[in-house]
């Protein structure tokens, strides 16, 4: 057990190392992509370029540059932005985390509940008009680009119907810290939550429905029915419970990816200063230290999510415990 855990942790470190190298290479070693040219600005003279290269350590060999970057990111933690001189990278990322967490967490509550309801109801009423309606709605939800949905939401709640009783409570775009005002936090985030959750409700509803329908054909469902325990119990305690394995796996991975910056588009559209938006801003100015920090942060969450899913798997699926 311990050996398995250690080897799993080792694997995680290896993957994160791989990701940091890939990210580093993309920005520092792409043929023709000279970071110093970006920093120095267009039409910079040759001397300026050389100076910039030296200042930022870009004239050293790549492995050394990589090592220095990691040292300053993890050990001394004094890595500073290339663009806003003096802005420390690590605290900036730490500041953005609560925003992203608030966004993703709230959305996750909506999409898990929504996905469960849609999946179970559609699965249980397979072939009915209710099932068909839910599936069409899910498919539409899966097909809407999140940034566009966000814009439509903004158009309705911030402009067109903002003055009606329906949406007059919606605060202007932006984040309100939970510690400042819990109610304000909720009001500022509830529309972003719905926007972000829409895709996943559709996705999870569809996957769960398919999984439940498949499970309900199994022999053990017949056994459960023969026990005389009532159809709802059969559906929830046997059908749904067995289908949850796939559901939880998906959830872990999606949650990790979103916390790791996947919610970027939602953050941009709703003006939320989260990690995704931070990444996006850093990418636009090619602020390499910031990009590396956010990408590694992101990979950390993705890898962690993988790990948590594996652990959760053991709890949900007894078969996984014995290595089946």
């Amino acid at each position: 057990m311990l050996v398995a855990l250690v080897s799993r942790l080792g694997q995680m470190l290896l993957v994160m190392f791989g990701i940091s190298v890939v990210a580093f290479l993309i920005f520092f070693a792409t043929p023709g992509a000279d970071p110093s040219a970006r920093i120095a600005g267009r039409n910079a003279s040759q001397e300026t370029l050389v100076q910039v290269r030296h200042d930022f350590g870009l004239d050293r060999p790549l492995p050394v540059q990589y090592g220095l970057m990691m040292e300053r990111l993890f050990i001394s933690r004094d890595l500073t932005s290339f663009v806003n001189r003096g802005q420390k990278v690590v605290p900036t990322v730490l500041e953005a985390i609560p925003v992203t967490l608030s966004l993703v967490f709230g959305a996750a509550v909506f999409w898990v509940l929504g996905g469960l309801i849609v999946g179970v109801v559609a699965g249980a009423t397979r072939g009915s008009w209710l099932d068909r309606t839910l599936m069409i709605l899910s498919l539409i939800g899966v097909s809407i680009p999140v940034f566009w949905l966000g814009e439509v939401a903004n158009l309705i709640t911030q402009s067109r119907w903002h003055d009606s009783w329906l949406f007059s409570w919606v605060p202007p775009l932006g984040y309100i810290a939970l510690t400042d005002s819990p109610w304000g936090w909720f009001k500022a985030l509830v529309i972003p939550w719905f926007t972000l959750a829409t895709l996943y409700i559709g996705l999870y509803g569809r996957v769960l429905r398919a999984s439940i329908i498949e499970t309900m054909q199994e022999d053990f469902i017949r056994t459960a029915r023969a026990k005389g325990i009532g159809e709802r119990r059969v559906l929830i305690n046997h059908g749904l419970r067995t289908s949850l394995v796939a559901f939880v796996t998906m959830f872990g991975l999606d949650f990790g990816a979103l916390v790791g910056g996947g919610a970027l588009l939602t953050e941009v559209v709703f003006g939320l200063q989260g990690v995704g938006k931070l990444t996006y801003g850093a990418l636009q100015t090619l602020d390499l230290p910031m990009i590396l920090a956010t990408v590694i942060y992101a990979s950390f969450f993705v890898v962690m999510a993988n790990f948590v899913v594996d652990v959760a798997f053991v709890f949900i699926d007894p078969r996984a415990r014995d290595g089946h």
Partner: protein
Amino acid sequence: MATEMPLLAVENLCVSFRTDGGVVPAVSGVSFSVERREILGVVGESGSGKSQTLLAIMGLINSPNAIVTGSVRFLGQEMLGLKRRALDAIRGRQVAMVFQDPMTALTPVHTIGDQIIEQIRAHESLSRGAARRRAVELLDAVGLPSPESAVDRYPHQLSGGMRQRAVIAMALSCNPALLIADEPTTALDVTVQAQILELIGRLRDSFGSAVILVTHDLGVVAEVADRVMVMYAGRVVEEGGKGQLFREPLHPYSWGLFGSIPPMHGPRPARLTAIPGSPPKLSQMPQGCAFGPRCGFRHEACAAQPSLGSAGGHRSACFLPREGRHELRRTLAGGVPA
């Protein structure tokens, strides 16, 4: 005879399925009854409608394309078309079922104990602790070694035989008056088969349950059953007491069945006879007697559908004159049928 109500009375049960190629009958006009503490053996090849008959009794055919008609009365109460709630008051409590494949019959994500406790508590207001104690007792009663730890095991942690014992323990958990076992030993090793059969045979004594035991293994029936019903192509072709039916089977199909296994007593036959041909496809049922095309004694009368005679304890659905059938059978056993 008719003074006491039978435990289970099935009358004219029909099960058919709507398919792309029209309505296909799986069970046609099956009637039989089971008395208290009786073990009824049902034999027949795969596809003879045995399993569908049982599933229909249990109300477990819920394909939207299935059509189930006829009557199934348990202690006088009609079970077909019963509301789910009323059905669930009977299912699992008074009538329980054991399925063919123990490997897939248990929900993989719950422990054996939890699945038994769930059934107990669905029917009796018992505390969790008490239900758990009952589960341990049941597992002990069906011969699961170290039942205290087995109760917390997951299905995949048990062997096939152990799982089938657990399934049987679950079926017995509410002391059912009738246990329906659908080929409970088919998926098991031969050595385990004997143990499970012995267990089912003992049930009547220790739990007082009647049993419908479906199998395609005649040996099994000979071992435990009181009465035997032979099914072919969705119909009952012969029914009678075990001794009678084994000694003097009346239907040519039964002759074929018995001819295909070596006899325990008497001279060894030169070769075992096989029934020529194969069972009809359900979608292409022959006119008249379904066994006709494979029967060596077919004659004009067989173009009509024979009915299961209602005479006494031993019935068969065949147009051959009752007298002299044994002589006919002997010609079959002696070699080539006409």
